[in-house]
């Protein structure tokens, strides 16, 4: 009995780590662009959606090919986004840039919706890519789906690769310099457009990876794909601390982890607010508010480093 209860918790924790890993991937993509551009890319979710659509459209192909196509198209889309909207607005206020990404997000969502209103199709397209990873392996009483393992491995590898890139290459040095002080970096010979395009392109690759992992378990894509998860990650990134890529990533991981774990642990019964798992978002949002009130610069931000202050 005790073993069963314990394994239920272990199960919940493993699932939560898997969920946190995907969120962390997305957080890195958002944090990287914020670092060099000071731009909160709300349209990141629609990049995930584009990648998922590419998987759906190439459903009959070899899985490896369709993933390559998804990555390529997503990178292309984000580069277009950068050229058309981010670059002309680079010097404007953060609110203007944010609203511009709202507009892009809105544009892409409604463009995707056209697919379902124009013809009488059922809502959503199905994705069969790597569907066999939904099988679980059982250790004792804990069922771990392969996709959870893949999520954790992909996120770890991608983060390690990024750490190597940032720490050991010239491009990484330029990216870090640009994130730290863009003007000075430019004065010292860092090419602004090149660095920004690299940061944006890497964020596109990460969006495509996240889309592949999310699509394995959801097996479907529609115009809302990527929206909720991006909102959650954005919140996590700010809660973690947006000034720094590591704290942003930890924040993304934490919100994914907490969301999954609290959802599993809250009772299903309870009619008053905050007492059952239908109120899961409220519980998370309340925690977010409390964290921000105590540490407005972010949970993992070093003190004195925060860009935001309380008044």
């Amino acid at each position: 009995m005790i073993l069963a209860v314990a394994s239920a918790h272990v199960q919940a924790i493993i699932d939560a780590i898997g969920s946190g890993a995907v969120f962390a991937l997305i957080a890195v993509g958002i944090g990287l662009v914020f670092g060099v551009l000071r731009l909160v890319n709300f349209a990141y979710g629609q990049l995930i959606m584009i990648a998922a659509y590419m998987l759906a459209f190439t459903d009959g192909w070899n899985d490896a090919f369709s993933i390559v196509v998804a990555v390529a198209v997503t990178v292309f889309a984000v580069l277009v986004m950068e050229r058309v909207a981010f670059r002309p607005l680079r010097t404007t206020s953060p609110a203007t840039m944010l609203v511009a990404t709202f507009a892009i997000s809105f544009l892409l969502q409604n463009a995707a919706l056209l697919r379902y209103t124009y013809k009488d199709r059922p809502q959503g397209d199905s994705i069969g890519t790597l569907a066999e990873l939904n099988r679980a392996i059982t250790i004792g009483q804990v069922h771990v789906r392969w996709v959870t393992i893949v999520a954790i491995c992909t996120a770890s590898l991608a983060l390690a690769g990024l750490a190597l890139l940032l720490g050991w290459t010239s491009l990484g040095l330029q990216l870090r310099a640009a994130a730290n002080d863009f003007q000075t970096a430019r004065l010292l010979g860092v090419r602004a457009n090149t660095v920004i395009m690299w940061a944006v392109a890497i964020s596109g690759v990460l969006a495509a990876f996240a889309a592949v992992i999310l699509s394995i378990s959801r097996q479907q894509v529609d115009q809302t794909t990527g929206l909720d998860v991006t909102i959650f990650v954005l919140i996590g990134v700010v809660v973690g601390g947006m000034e720094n890529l590591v704290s942003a990533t930890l924040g993304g991981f934490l919100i994914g982890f907490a969301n999954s774990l609290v959802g599993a642990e809250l009772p299903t019964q309870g009619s008053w607010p905050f007492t059952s798992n239908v109120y899961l978002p409220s519980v998370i949002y309340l925690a977010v508010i409390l964290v921000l009130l105590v540490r407005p610069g972010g949970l993992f931000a070093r003190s004195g480093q925060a860009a935001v202050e309380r008044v």
Partner: protein
Amino acid sequence: MRRWDPLLQLAMPVLLVVLTAVLASGFASPADSVKFRNVLIEISVVVGLYVFVGNSGVLSFGQISFVAVGAFSAGVMTVPSDVKPNVLTTLFPFIKNHSIGNVTSLLLAAGVGMIYALIVGIPLMRLSGLAAGIATFAVLGITYNILKYWDRIGPGATTLTLIPATTDYVQATAGAVGVIIAAFLYQRSRWGRLLRATREDPAAAQAAGIDIHRQRLWAFVLSGGLCGFAGGLLVHLLESINVDQVYLDLTFLTLAMLVVGGSQSLLGAVVGGLTVGLVNILLSDLEHKWHVGGASILPGGSSLVGVAIVMLAVLLVRPSGITGGREFDAGWISRLFARGPSTAERVPPAA
């Protein structure tokens, strides 16, 4: 001329709203009539949003929470009491067994919005920048979540129906004009000026003895009241409402309207609401009603894509909004007739 500037600043937005209402009530088809009144209400929401965001410079994603509580309190309380116990069986008894009239419900909506904004604002107004944006978004998330699942205070996940339709052109216009006047009086008041000072330079404002938290809180509460009031108007226009109608889409739409118009002026709020709202109506008419040779001009569902493109295009051409964040003044007219580069160009007012 300068003496008349304050009056012009108020007259221009009011004129735009009234003109739209008069033209729409005269010429719009019955189907479009609801859309036009909806635009008038959206303008009220955007002006409510402007009172806080525009004057304080702090981004808030939470103002639609106040629209939502306003809409649902006005809606739930005006469902006739003879049918309410049968439709909304799970409500708390004192909500279930009482109903109120139209004007009372609008006042209730404004009051509930204000009180909610006060409760939320006391802790949250300490925050600035991204932290404030995310924290206010969290408020929206909590409001949505509780309204959606707690069926003791509202319809829960179902659609609330049987709400009396009282928002005609007169009420929608009078409401929007009232909201504009309130916003105008606030921004010219001592408190409004103090808050604008904190927007321009928080450190200097604090050094001059301005309590930033208190000034932001007043604006937040007034904004909450105006948004709640607009929510009341909205629910009496739609006759039925679902909590999803006062959540993300409306938040992004109204914020986009504010930024497209120019977030730092009252005129910008009205112009932005009007522009995006009218483009939306025009494109959806192109999509549904107007045909060339048997086919509609725009393919079905494409109007919202068009709205997004227009929004993006405006931001790319005029990043600080159509009005550039300036109020209307006599200078606009003289600049209009001036040849070549205007000499009347002056430093924008603290607007």
